[in-house]
């Protein structure tokens, strides 16, 4: 291993550097590498020698290059910047240069390292806290809050009146409260007669066909008579019965058609 121009002080440090290089993929960027290197100085980060650190870093890069290890561009950029910093720190300040001094740059780098280190420790402390699902637990059987959707229907009196008016307007001249109890429809009569017609072998008065309860009340009698008459015409047309009336206003008689 060519290590002629590597200025490591002892074998231990060199072995450490080799370990670093083997681990190069394990570093999370140049700042992380710098932080690791700074630990070898075994001093508080506030008292760190940035110059020494820069030299360590540059040596590391050199070593990696000699081992033909591909380093990401940001490591090389950091190396360039540290080389620049090193020259700033070593050379007397150029009065024509109004940029930041080497000391300012070094102080900032030290700050960054300290901050990163502090964040690492904080992250460790955070992860060391009691954690939900590991150290403390939530309710094992959480009860769902059931969402009850209640629909409330509303209507105003105006809605009601408008609704009623709408119906009334639809057929204003019709009786509003048609009393169905006193009306027999054609269909009702037809249905009734169809069922009974088989029993009418002889001529019988149509009025005798009116159902019970419809013969006395005049309104009901009228309605039932009319519907039964209409129904009998229907049945005659269908060939089910015969109809006869001997005289004007004489009783209308019906009988079932004899089947051949």
């Amino acid at each position, binding site marked *: 291993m060519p290590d002629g121009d590597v200025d490591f002080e002892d074998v231990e440090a060199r072995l450490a550097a080799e370990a670093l290089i083997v681990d190069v993929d394990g570093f999370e960027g140049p700042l992380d590498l710098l932080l690791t290197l700074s630990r070898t100085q075994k001093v508080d980060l506030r008292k760190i020698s940035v110059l020494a650190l820069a030299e360590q870093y540059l040596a590391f890069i050199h070593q990696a290059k000699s081992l033909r290890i591909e380093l990401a561009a940001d490591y090389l950029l950091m190396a360039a910047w540290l080389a620049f910093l090193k020259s700033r720190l070593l050379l007397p300040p150029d009065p024509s240069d109004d940029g930041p001094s080497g000391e300012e740059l070094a102080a900032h780098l030290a700050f960054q390292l300290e901050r990163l280190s502090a964040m690492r420790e904080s992250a460790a402390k955070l992860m060391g806290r009691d954690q939900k699902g590991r150290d403390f637990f939530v309710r094992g059987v959480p009860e769902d809050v059931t969402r009850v959707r*209640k629909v409330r*229907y509303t209507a105003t009196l105006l809605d009601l009146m408008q*609704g009623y008016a709408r119906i009334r307007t639809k057929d204003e001249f019709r009786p509003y409260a*048609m009393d169905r109890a006193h009306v027999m429809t054609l269909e009702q009569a037809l249905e009734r007669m169809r069922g009974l017609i088989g029993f009418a072998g002889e001529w019988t008065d149509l009025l005798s066909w009116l159902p019970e309860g419809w013969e006395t009340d005049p309104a009901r009698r009228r309605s039932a008579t009319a519907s039964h008459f209409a129904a009998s015409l229907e049945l005659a047309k269908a060939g089910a019965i015969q109809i006869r009336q001997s005289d004007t206003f004489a009783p209308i008689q019906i009988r079932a058609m004899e089947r051949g």
Partner: protein
Amino acid sequence: MAETDPQTPDGLESLFEAPPLAEQERMVEAILFATSETVTIAELNARMPHGSDGAQAIELLKKRYEGRGVCVVKVGDAFAMRTAPDLGFLMRKETVETRKLSRAAIETLAIIAYHQPVTRAEIEEIRGVSVSRGTVDQLLELEWIRFGRRRMTPGRPVTYVVTQDFLDHFGLESARDLPGVKELRAAGLLESRPPPGEPLPGEDEDHDENQAEMFEDED
């Protein structure tokens, strides 16, 4: 808290000494809280430190939660913690949605109000269309209508009448207070036939507003 079990001697064995009963109670409390299934005494004992008496601890816990918002219940031969049954209503979040009554329902309701007691056949006769069971059921459910006496006619059809709730909702003292045909006409509500879905014409805004204010029931 730190009372020691008198039966257990000090020294090495105390390492395996059961925790104080109060501590066992805490443990049972935590286990019952966090476990999704019910827990038997045997399971409790298996999970608690050696020598613990889950049965005794659970009795203490049960007493502690008596009358609280949460209680220890026995399910079969296992235990669980549940919210107190009387507080179940807190686990419900009610959202009230206000909806306008459908046109069919309003018309049916109006007919019942104006013609009560009225049978379903009569309502259909007046509306000129059949009345769906759903519409009547909805009005019954709202408790705005109820069954009246059966009509003494063949088939003895049931009649409908409006309820006190109906009167309260519409701010009426009795169904007789409903505006009559004359008043409806005077209000411009009976004048002509509106196109379907449109408000009735002939209602000048002011009048309409007044009436709405007069009759609408903000509940």
